[in-house]
């Protein structure tokens, strides 16, 4: 069970650098998720781990051994492709057993007749057969062993692909967006199955996805990537509660973290439209007397009240959109009163903020309201770089 180590890895295609100076240390038995938007380099990263793509500079180590030049089959890995990559002309049985077929392959097996005979013989071998059956049972494919991939559904094909990976009993499992071709319901079912598999198998998984829900639910550690640069490496909780920059803050969490520009003055926050809030006692804040910052507050830390009256420690706002989801309502709002602002009603704008309110809340778009922000555990980001600002609990003034 190797400990995977990335040491200054970069990747360039010609002059175009797609992955920049990537370093990380991944302990055993982790479920590492490489998370990021399309084109961020996560699949390239995975393929470098597999040995399907060459590493430009830097070292990749499995358990302390540099594996940069090693062929995939020597690395003791298994790879599940996004498109499953099943051999269309082989049966499910032969697909799953294929790695075993290859490990038993001798040079003279290249001869035409010998080849077919040998393949049949290997498939009938009791040991091979037992392994295939075991994997098929685990993947609930026993009834499909003699079918061709073409006749299987997406979910079944995916399980065959996973089965093919399992049979080799590798030290590392690499999965490239395996769920993105499945429908929503199947996806959540397979998420649970893959997590269970990870527990059962007890080996390291490296999993690529653009879906932050998958990352948060399945991963034990997440690497967030954007444009070839690691944004953050941490556990799901670390990434959620203390995002390293504005990108991670907006990428993780649904709805995304609200980022609000304001001015920090000592322990007060002054908002562009004039509202002011005080940071509660004991709440950490950046160590600065006066600076512009970006305040980050999660949607579930905001409460909305349909009142016109301005109470203390609240901000005036007006409703843009209200979505009732059953267990909660997601309210999109903008700060300031309705008065003279042109409405667009989309939630995509950055100065539209979102709150999650438990239960049902009747609010009409356009109505004025007041908003209370719970600033404990709020994040602060630099207004130019987007980087997280270090915070400290101010000394108690007695």
């Amino acid at each position, binding site marked *: 069970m190797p400990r995977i180590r990335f040491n200054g890895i970069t990747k360039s295609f010609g002059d175009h650098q797609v992955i920049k100076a990537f370093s990380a240390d991944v302990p055993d038995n982790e479920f590492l998720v490489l998370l990021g938007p399309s084109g961020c380099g996560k699949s390239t990263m995975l393929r470098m781990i*597999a040995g*399907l793509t060459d590493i430009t500079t830097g070292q990749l180590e499995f358990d302390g051994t540099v594996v940069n030049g090693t*062929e*995939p*089959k020597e690395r003791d*890995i*298994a*790879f599940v*492709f*996004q*498109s499953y*990559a*099943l*051999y*269309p*002309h*082989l049966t499910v049985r032969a697909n799953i057993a*294929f*790695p075993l077929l*290859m*490990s038993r*392959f001798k040079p003279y097996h*290249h001869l035409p007749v010998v*080849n077919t005979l040998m393949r049949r013989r290997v498939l009938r071998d009791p040991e091979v057969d037992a392994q295939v059956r075991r994997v098929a049972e685990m993947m609930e494919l026993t009834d499909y062993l003699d079918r*061709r991939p*073409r*006749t299987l559904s997406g979910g079944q094909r995916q399980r065959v692909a996973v089965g*093919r990976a399992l049979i*080799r009993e590798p030290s590392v499992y690499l999965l490239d967006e395996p769920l993105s071709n499945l429908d929503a319901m199947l996806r959540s079912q397979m998420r649970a199955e893959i997590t269970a598999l990870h527990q059962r198998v007890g080996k390291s998984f490296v999993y690529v996805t653009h879906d932050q829900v998958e990352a948060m639910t399945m991963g034990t550690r997440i690497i967030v990537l954007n444009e070839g640069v690691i944004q953050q490496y941490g556990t799901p909780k670390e990434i959620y509660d203390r995002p390293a920059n504005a990108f991670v803050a907006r990428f993780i969490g649904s709805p995304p973290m609200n980022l609000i520009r304001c001015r920090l003055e000592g322990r007060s926050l002054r908002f562009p439209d004039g509202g002011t809030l005080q940071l509660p006692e004991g709440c950490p804040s950046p160590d600065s007397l006066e600076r512009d910052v970006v305040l980050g507050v999660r949607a579930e830390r905001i409460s909305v009240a349909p009142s016109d009256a301005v109470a203390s420690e609240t901000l005036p706002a007006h409703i843009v959109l209200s979505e009732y989801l059953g267990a909660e309502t997601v309210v999109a709002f903008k700060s300031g009163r309705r008065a003279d602002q042109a409405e667009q009603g989309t939630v995509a704008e950055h100065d539209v903020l979102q709150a999650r309110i438990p239960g049902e809340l009747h609010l009409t778009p356009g109505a004025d309201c007041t908003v209370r922000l719970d600033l404990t555990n709020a994040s602060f980001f630099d207004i130019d770089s987007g980087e997280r600002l270090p915070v400290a609990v101010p000394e108690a003034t007695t």
Partner: protein
Amino acid sequence: MTDVGTETRTAARAVDPTPRANRGRRLAPYLFIAAAVVYLLLLTGAPLLDGLWLSLTDTQLLNPTAGTFIGTHNYSSLFSDAGFAHTLVVTIVYSTATVLGALSVGTVAAVAMNGAFRGRVFARAILTFPWAVPSVAAVLVFSWIYNKDSGVLNHTLGSVGLAEHGWLVDPTWSLFAVTLASVWKVFPFVMLVVLAALQSVPEELYEAARVDGADAFNRFRTVALPFLLPALRVTALLMTIWSFRRFEIIWLLTQGGPVGSTNTLVISVYREAFVNSDLGRSAAMGVVGLLLSTIVTVIFFYVDRAAARKEAL
């Protein structure tokens, strides 16, 4: 490109004139194909029937309208003719050799051309030349290359100490020379078809095989070959039928000689009509050739169907 298969199916379910549609709509497809049908009937069907009729007569070239009906006499005389048997043998040998040669060279070329390398566009362009070059021009160059005394082939062989031959005049080598020229002419077509098939193979399949531990040969056999086989089968059929028809290269290089060593069926058909003046017999030979093509096509059709079913695709 691979979508065309499914599109064909959906397109076929297209405009189906309902009973209440006006007569114009119903007639439309027939109007569209009218020109083609007339053409086929007049310029292909009629001559074909005429040819069939001719094969049952003793018409001579010098008096084409004065033939008398002699029933199947032409055919029976063919089947007792050792020369005709020899012609059939030559035809089959030539076809098999040309088709196998073109398929192998073409496939090897396609495999080599699959995958990027510098100068690939240039190489691909040059590899299309043989297909583009008109047969007559090809014949002119090849007969010069094959020239016994001054041709470059013999010069090169001689300079490295190998035997020189009269490629087009020596009965032992003439069929080989003609086959070589034919394979040269025809392999680019195979290459292009196989290359297209190879390029339709998803890259991930190769990678999966690599991860599973398959070496290069195994990757080709497990991943690429299943995609190639349907294309190869169609190409083999086309190559075979075309080899039965191929006239210019053989006629202009050797006229079927020397001593009938390159005398394929089409050459015989032509010679019988325009040299021996026996139109009836020539037509009979032509009909035999047509039968041969039909048999090959039918065999192919069944083999292809069986294979496609076996591939469960």
